[in-house]
């Protein structure tokens, strides 16, 4: 009997379990997760409605049962023997596999300063509960790290009326994944909402109720959250002798250096057309890689080619980025009543788009932009800039051409 084991029951591992069945795989599927809960969605954790953490399960136990997926929760994988095709679990059990999927995800990067243990992480449901219940009896919060998670959390905590400070080592927040124009917009919105920024600042020590910065400034903080990014969870793969770098290295088919072991989600650095490996950290990527990996494990030979996409909710604003905008792309802005849409052209070809607007008002336009990117169009920049030109018509013309 064929057996597939999936290590990691986050968005990617769980999606893969179902996608294997959708691809017609008939062997046994075992999903192993270290957390005690049913698999759940992480994005809502930093975007809680009414400030309360809710657990949104990815599926019911019945759905797992119906799909014939054995879900082992509260156990980790402690060793991988790729030669004998077996995974050892933290409870001592060994699982044999014909094919293995590593969906081990990522873990929060740790601060190295004195008192670092006082800072709370923000990755899991339990982390979110600890932070949001901790702030109920507090007045001030310091968030170390001005990335997407830190900024989403800042917006939520301002909404709860707390004094919020964001401490960021770089000169600007959101510098890594967000195009600078939109990063600046969001930065100023946070300032208007009363978030205190300490930029270009390292942390020298976290004390009781205070964060001490490198320049000697003390930032008051009853609660301190560390949101300085994540590191791919590669220990298991590394110990098993698989190729790793900034993630578990895979080819374009999401196959690791061992042909019977695939990987998907935050833990993967996937080979790019044209060279190098890239790791993506997003909800959509976790699902899309899971689907491709699952189909390939079930016998398909399909390169992973999804257009990267993520969104972020901050106050009433929604940011979306599709593709990978680069500073040397030609940027064309389209101003709309509820926000702005940016198109990025590489040598005339549309390769990326981004938007910032109120609520979901720009979702349609972004979806159409994504379809235009996938269609490899070379639009006239003046047409892109004109809000009177319907993107759906542009897409239909491109498809007709």
């Amino acid at each position: 009997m064929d057996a597939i084991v999936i290590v990691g029951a986050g968005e990617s591992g769980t999606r893969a379990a179902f996608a294997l069945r959708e691809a017609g795989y008939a062997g046994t599927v075992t999903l192993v997760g270290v957390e005690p809960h049913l698999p759940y969605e992480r994005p809502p954790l930093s975007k809680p409605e009414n400030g309360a953490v809710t657990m949104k399960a990815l599926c019911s136990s019945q759905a797992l049962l119906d799909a014939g997926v054995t879900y082992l929760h509260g156990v980790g994988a402690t060793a991988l023997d790729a030669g004998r095709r077996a995974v050892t679990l933290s409870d001592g059990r060994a699982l044999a596999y014909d094919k293995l999927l590593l969906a081990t995800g990522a873990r929060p990067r740790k601060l190295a300063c004195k008192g670092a243990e006082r800072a709370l992480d923000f990755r899991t449901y339990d982390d979110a509960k600890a932070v949001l219940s901790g702030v109920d009896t507090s007045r001030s919060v310091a968030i170390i790290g001005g990335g997407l998670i830190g900024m989403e959390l800042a917006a939520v905590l301002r909404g709860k009326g707390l004094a919020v400070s964001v401490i960021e080592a770089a000169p600007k927040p959101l510098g890594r994944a967000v195009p600078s124009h939109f990063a600046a917009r969001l930065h100023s919105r946070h300032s208007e909402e009363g978030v205190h920024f300490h930029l270009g600042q390292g942390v020298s020590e976290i004390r009781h109720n205070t964060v001490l910065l490198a320049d000697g400034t003390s930032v008051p903080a009853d609660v301190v959250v560390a949101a300085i990014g994540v590191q791919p969870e590669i220990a298991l793969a590394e110990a098993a002798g698989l190729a790793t770098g900034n993630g578990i290295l895979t080819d374009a088919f999401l196959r690791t250096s061992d042909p019977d072991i695939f990987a998907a989600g935050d833990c993967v650095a996937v080979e790019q057309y044209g060279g190098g490996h890239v790791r993506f950290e997003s909800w959509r990527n976790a699902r899309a890689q899971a689907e491709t990996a699952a189909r390939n494990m079930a016998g398909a030979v399909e390169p992973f080619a999804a257009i990267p996409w993520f969104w972020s909710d901050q106050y009433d604003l929604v940011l979306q980025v599709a593709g990978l905008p680069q500073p040397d792309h030609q940027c064309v802005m389209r101003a709309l009543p509820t926000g702005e849409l940016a198109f990025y052209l590489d040598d005339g070809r549309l390769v990326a788009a981004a938007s910032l607007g109120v609520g979901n008002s720009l979702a349609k336009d972004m979806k159409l932009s994504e379809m235009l990117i996938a269609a490899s169009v070379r639009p006239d920049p003046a047409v892109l800039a004109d809000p009177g030109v319907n993107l759906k018509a542009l897409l239909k013309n491109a498809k007709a051409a």
Partner: protein
Amino acid sequence: MSWVSACQLDDIEQEGAIRFDHGGRTYAIYRGPDDRVYCTAGLCTHEAVHLADGLVMDFEVECPKHSGAFDYRTGEAIRLPACENLKTYPAEVVDGEVRVAVN
């Protein structure tokens, strides 16, 4: 079945949708490429997001947040993460006016 006047047909672009709130509930009304009108529950069954903000292509509406999709004629969930079908309601056009039976 009692009909409620929702809007004018011209208020909805072809292959488009608008949100319609009535009696404390929210609905989405679509104008299909066939120029007929359709009505479904207004919120995605995956997360409470207004579907009228989503992209309408042919007879499909896509949730603006997570790309789940539905056939708005039948309410059938046709793409994950949406897996629960949408409720549908009768809709018609009388003299350019869109009426729906949502009660």
